[in-house]
C-alpha cells in the first residue's frame, strides 16, 4: 500500500476518524533533544491542548509517538517496543533533521540515520530543532490528514511487518533485550 492510497471506509471507521482527527494524545517520551521544544508547545505560550492534544503517560493510552530528534540504537529498541504496545490506530511524527537522514549525527556510531526504515513515519517536521510553531502546524496537518483518512502508517507497519523487522534487526541486533547486562 503506497502512501496516501485511499480505501473505502465503513461509516463506523469514518466516525472514528472524525473523533481521532480532533483528539490526539501523544506519548510522553522524550527520545531526543527535540523534546526541549515540547514543554513550550504544551504550556501556556502555545497551548497545544486547544487543538485537542495532550500528553499521556503510557503507550497504551497514546495515539502518537513523537520521535523527537535523533534516535540512538538503545532508544530505538525502546521506541519500537513502545510503538508495538500502542493501540491502533497510531501515528508517528518525527522531529528534526536527525530523524530524516541522521542530520549532524550522520557519522555517529550510535544513532540511526533513517527512521522510516524501522518504523512507519507519518509525518516529518524539518528543522533543527523544529520551532513550536512548526510542531503545532504539524499537529494540525496530522489531524487534518487523519480526518481525511490519509495517514496509514500503522497499516503499513502491519502489512510490511517482516520487512520492518528485518531492518530493525539489522540496525539494532536484538530488538527485545533479554540480558540484564548492567547487573
Amino acid at each position, binding site marked *: 500500500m503506497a502512501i496516501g492510497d485511499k480505501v473505502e471506509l465503513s461509516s463506523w471507521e469514518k466516525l472514528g476518524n472524525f473523533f481521532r482527527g480532533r483528539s490526539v494524545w501523544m506519548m510522553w517520551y522524550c527520545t531526543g*533533544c527535540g523534546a*526541549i521544544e515540547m514543554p513550550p508547545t504544551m504550556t501556556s505560550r502555545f497551548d497545544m491542548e486547544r487543538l485537542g492534544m495532550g*500528553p499521556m503517560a503510557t503507550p497504551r493510552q497514546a495515539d502518537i509517538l513523537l520521535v523527537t530528534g535523533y534516535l*540512538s540504537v538503545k532508544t530505538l529498541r*525502546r521506541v519500537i517496543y513502545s510503538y508495538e504496545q500502542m493501540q491502533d490506530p497510531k501515528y508517528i511524527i518525527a522531529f528534526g533533521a536527525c530523524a530524516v537522514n541522521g542530520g*549532524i549525527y550522520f557519522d555517529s*556510531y550510535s544513532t540511526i540515520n533513517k527512521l522510516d526504515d524501522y518504523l512507519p513515519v507519518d509525518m516529518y517536521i524539518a528543522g533543527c*530543532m523544529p520551532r513550536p510553531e512548526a510542531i503545532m502546524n504539524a499537529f494540525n496537518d496530522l489531524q487534518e490528514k487523519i480526518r481525511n483518512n490519509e495517514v496509514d502508517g500503522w497499516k503499513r507497519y502491519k502489512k510490511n511487518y517482516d520487512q520492518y523487522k528485518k531492518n530493525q534487526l539489522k540496525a539494532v541486533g536484538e530488538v527485545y533485550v533479554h540480558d540484564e547486562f548492567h*547487573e
Partner: protein
Amino acid sequence: MEVNKLKEVKLFLGPQHPGMHGNYSVHMYVDGDIIKKARPMPGMLHRGFEKLMERKLWMSNMAIIPRICVIEPDINEMVYAMGVEALAGVEVPEKATWIRMMILEMARVATHLFALGGIGGPTGLYTSMYWAVAERDLILDLFEKLTGARVYHIFIVPGGVRKDLPEGFKTQLGTYLESLEKKLPEYQELLLKHPIIHTRSKDNILLPAEVVHELGVTGIGMRSATGKAYDLRKVKPYAFYDQVEFEVPTATYSDALTRIHLKFQEIQQSIRILKQIIEKMPDEGPVKAPIGTGNALKLRVPAGMVYTAVESTRGEYGYFIVSNGKEKPYRIAVRGASYPQGLLGIERYLPGHRIDDAPLWMDTMGVCSPEIDR
C-alpha cells in the same frame, strides 16, 4: 536470596515515564514503596560526541557542541571557546566578554525557570509548570532576537561572539527583567511558600556534605550542603564575573526545599548580574577578535591540552581539550555537570527513598541526561 526476591519488585523509572525528564532510565528494586536498590541506565541519548568532535574542524565543531546539553546549550559554546582561546592564546574583546556573560546569565535564568516549573511535575503543581515554561519562552524570544535561534544559538564562538547586539536589545532585556522581577513573588507564593510543597520536600531527599564530597557533586547541591560559596564564578572567575556584584546563595542543610529555594535565589542573583551587565557593557567596540590567520576553517590550534570549566545551573561544566596542532581537535572530553549525582548518586543514594520521591530526587538533584550520555 530467594526469599528476598519475593519481597522485591523491579520498577523502571523511565525512559518513557512522566516522572523522568529526559531520556534516561533508573531501574529500581522496590520493597513496598521504599527503593532498596537503584541502578542508573544512561546511554539512551548517547551520540558519541567525543568521537564526532574529533572528526570535525575546530570551527565546524561549533555546530554540534551546543547539542550536548539541551537544556542549557550556551555553556558548551562558552567552555569550548574558552578552551580554544586558552590554547591559541587569544584575547577576547571586552564587549564580547560582556555579551557572553549576558548570554550565560540569560540562559541561567531560563534554565532555572524551567527547572522550577519542572518541580511542578513530580509534585503535581502543574500550574507552576505552565507559568514558568511560558515565562522562559519570553527569554527564548530575546535569544531569538539576539541570535536568530530559540534553543541552539551558536553565538559564542572562539574569539568572541558572532555579532554585535541588535538595536534596542538592552532596553528590551531591561524591560523583560523588570517584568520578571515583578512576577517572581507570584512564583514564590505559588511554589515556594505552598504548604503542601513544604510537606513534600522539607526534610526530604537530604544531601549531606559528606555525600557531596564522596560523589563530587557540584553546583547547587554542593552549595546547599556545605554552606560555602563554591561557585566557579566566585572561586575562579571567568569572563568578567569578578567585575559584577552578586551573591552566591548557600545553605548548610540540604533538603529538597532548600535546593528549590536556592534555585529561586539564583534567578534573583542572575537578574542582578544582568542589570549590571546592561549598565557596564560598552556601547561600542569589537565583538570578535581574529583567531588564527586567514580562513577560519583552516584554523590550527597550537598543540597542548587544557581543561576549562564554567558554572552551569547544575554545577561545574567542563571540557578537556587536547590539540596536536592539526585542523581538528585530537580529543575532547566532556565533564557533564550532573555526572556524579546522575550515576553514582542514583546508585548509592536513591535507595532508601520512596517511589514518590524518586522523580523529585531527580529534579532537585539536577540530573540532566544528555550531558551524561553525550
